[in-house]
């Protein structure tokens, strides 16, 4: 942790940080509202498939909002986004592969007992 670059931040960079600061506040409010909406949603008398789909979309929205703004991916180099996206894609592929492999509706669970 060297302190070789002790120069004060340039004004353009500071202005950019102030702009981001406001984005963070707005995003934090949105995240709180969406989380509240998720909790309300599960108690609404709607079809399960609809609620599940909306929950998944809200969750994905929160997920990408945090990685894009709080984790600065929207401001950083694209390479970082693709590095992370590769891990994310592999995680989803793992889930899809496990679903396909186990054919969950037909499996005989006596194997495990």
């Amino acid at each position, binding site marked *: 942790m060297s302190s070789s670059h002790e120069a004060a931040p340039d004004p353009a960079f500071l202005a950019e940080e102030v702009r981001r600061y406001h984005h963070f506040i707005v995003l934090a409010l949105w995240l709180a509202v969406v989380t509240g909406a998720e909790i309300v949603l599960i108690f609404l008398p709607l079809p399960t498939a609809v609620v599940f789909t909306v929950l998944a979309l809200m969750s994905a929205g929160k*997920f990408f909002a*945090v990685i894009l703004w709080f984790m600065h991916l929207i401001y950083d180099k694209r390479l970082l986004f693709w590095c992370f996206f590769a891990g994310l894609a592999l995680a989803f592929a793992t889930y899809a592969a496990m679903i396909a492999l186990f054919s969950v509706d037909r499996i005989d669970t006596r194997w495990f007992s």
Partner: protein
Amino acid sequence: MSDTAAAHEAPTSTGIDHKKLIMWLFLASDCMFFGTLISTHLLYRKLFPAGFTDAEGHQRFIQNLFNLELTSFSTFILLMSSFLMALAVSAMHKGQLKSFRRNVLGVIFFGLIFLGCQVYEFTHFYHQGLTIQNSVLGSTFYVLTGTHGTHVAIGVLWLILLYFYSFTGKLGGHMGALDVEVAGLYWHFVDIVWIIIFTAVYLVEYLGPNGIWGSGLPVVAK
């Protein structure tokens, strides 16, 4: 990428600071790790929808065990800690060390509250009869949420160290901001993993009369 960001490009072949690149690669690998744990939990919930049997031999249903208010509170706390972490990183970029310390103390405080809630939840579940050994549900649930809790604990420890390190006078300038940014990336990752766990593990259990997995078993009251 903006012109301002371009002006702060790192002198590396990728234009990205190595510490930051390595942290993103680590997070990608951790994504796969949690992806496997979440997949395992969801698959076994589908395969064994019945829940678990408590010490008295009663069939129990997990939705009767969950405390949605507590979990929602934990989720809110973690989201707000992520917000404070973003402010802490921003403060370091602006060279405002005092603001950084205030915000990072808030993150540590919220992180400890989250851990306290998790300890309370685990203790409550254990006394209700859900253990890591007595059911597949217990095994996958404790391993998944426990691994996440361990990540939170490591994050809290890291931030405590950064907080005290800031008093040595060595946490300054571009490299200091980078160190805080890397710690921030880790903390935000812990938050996004919880966003998925909150929906995939907790909320889906409340869909339909017997949860989304629909065991058809009668729901036993607490």
